[in-house]
């Protein structure tokens, strides 16, 4: 048993080792290049999985430099699941502590946005709240309490992450050429209406409104008041409609103040 254990330990250590020609003692002399096939499979597999999860980060830094980042990230990992379907959690935090941040300060936030896209794409299925669900409840909207749909996240950044993401992921027939992106903070709503990930930038008022509703658990009336306080230009009805069409709310709502309607 100990002999087996030392085999697995030695093999795994040599796979992880940063020097390219580390070979475990279980592999005969002269077979370093054969062992390198395993090493290459492991590292290539992980770098590609990370690249698939963060395609825009990869575009922004280029394939070669992305591999360097991936190599560092892989070496920093202490846990890695046998399914790579949600691979790369923690990559944004890794980038935030990496020198690349000096030249591309927005890179960690682009990674956060891409992670949100992946998580939203794979979150639990649930009915979204539709405008039609609210028919006949108009006079009770103010006291209504809503929660975010499981496939919904908000990413707030000091940088124009939505504009940067869009510029890197243009549809092919759209006009190409350089666009200048103005430095400004952006907050992005990421949702999954009709099984497709959708993003839209939020105004200051919309961001405050949605956080008040889904995080502070305020009712619709109080959330609107809070949003208007933060942003006098906040358009209540248009914004609420936009959140509904994005599928941002879970269909299960409640009206707690004895208005005769309680879904829970």
């Amino acid at each position, binding site marked *: 048993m100990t002999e087996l254990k030392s*085999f697995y330990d030695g093999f795994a250590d040599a796979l*992880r080792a940063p020097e390219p020609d580390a070979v475990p003692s279980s592999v005969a002399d002269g077979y370093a290049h*054969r*062992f390198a096939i395993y090493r290459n*499979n*492991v590292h290539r597999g992980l770098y590609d999985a990370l690249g698939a999860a963060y395609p825009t980060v990869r575009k922004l830094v280029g394939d070669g430099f992305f591999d360097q980042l991936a190599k560092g990230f892989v070496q920093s990992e202490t846990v890695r699941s*046998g*399914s790579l379907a949600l691979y790369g959690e923690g990559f944004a935090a890794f980038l935030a502590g990496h020198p690349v941040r000096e030249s591309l300060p927005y890179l960690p936030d682009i990674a956060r946005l891409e992670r949100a896209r992946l998580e939203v*794409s794979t979150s639990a299925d649930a009915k979204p709240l539709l405008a039609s669900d609210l028919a006949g409840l108009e006079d009770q909207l103010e006291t209504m309490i809503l929660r975010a749909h499981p496939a919904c996240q908000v990413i707030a950044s000091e940088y124009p992450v939505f504009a940067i993401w869009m510029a890197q992921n243009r549809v092919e027939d759209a006009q190409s050429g350089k666009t200048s992106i103005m430095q400004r903070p952006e907050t992005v709503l990421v949702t999954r209406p009709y099984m497709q990930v959708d993003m839209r930038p939020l105004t200051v008022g919309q961001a405050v409104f949605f956080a008040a509703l889904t995080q502070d658990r305020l009712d619709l009336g109080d959330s609107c008041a809070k949003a208007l306080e933060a942003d006098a230009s906040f358009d209540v009805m248009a914004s609420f409609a936009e959140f509904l069409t994005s599928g941002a709310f879970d269909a299960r709502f409640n009206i707690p103040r004895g208005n005769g309607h309680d879904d829970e």
Partner: protein
Amino acid sequence: MTPLTQLPERAGVGFKAEHAQDIFAAEPTVDWFEVHPENYMVAGGPRLAMLEELCAHYPVSMHGVGLSLGGGEPLNKNHLADLKRLVDRFNPAMVSEHIAWSAHEGLYMADLLPTPMTQTSLVRLVDAINTVQDFIGRRILIENPTSYVALPQNSIPELEFISETAERSGCGLLIDVNNVYISAHNLGFEVNAFIDAVPGELVGEIHLAGHERDANPDDNVLIDTHSRPVADPVWDLFDRLIARIGRRPTLIEWDNDVPGWDVLAHEAALADRHLERAVATQLEAAS
């Protein structure tokens, strides 16, 4: 326990999301599909919806790559629970895994690494397979490995090792003919003798795939790339195997440089012709 196979004894292909349009829009001539359950270990969303759609129309085989059956540590309980959730929900026609390891101290290595073939590792492998079979309530198939290096601690020849594992655990064998060809080439064993000694009654499925020669000019080593059409000598070995044991569900694997749907469907049709010819040969021999 379930029978050895519930897949049709015809050609299937690995399901790729980029072919979904072609597969669902037309009526492809392929009889079944294989997926890696690891790709579907998520809570919900379009990926699982696509698998739902696939399972509604075709028999599906779940071929795992992440259980690390041949590893040096206990199976990961979360991974096993995720697999069971998928098996319970989609009721696949087959569940299979590899004789390989990929997990070490909580880190998944994203490759099928070589399991030493000794009496001790055999006992551990049988235990691991029994754990899986008991947990998901099904018989599984295990696939023979691709080898690049001979491990000095190996004391049991590969075919004996995998057959004995199947006998003791009650699982079946998934014979990857391309793996046999590559391993025989890389390690220098006699490939026909291996194919001729495969215990047919244990074989529930066959895999075919393309391979490539490593770029290293000093060493003639073949790599299991799944990036090309099936090579001629692999077709010959396939014919040799099915002429003796009869036809089996046969998968075309193509995971890198994935071609358009028509190319893949053509490769599957080719495998079907080989399977039909094997039946004809056997009928002729019997009459």
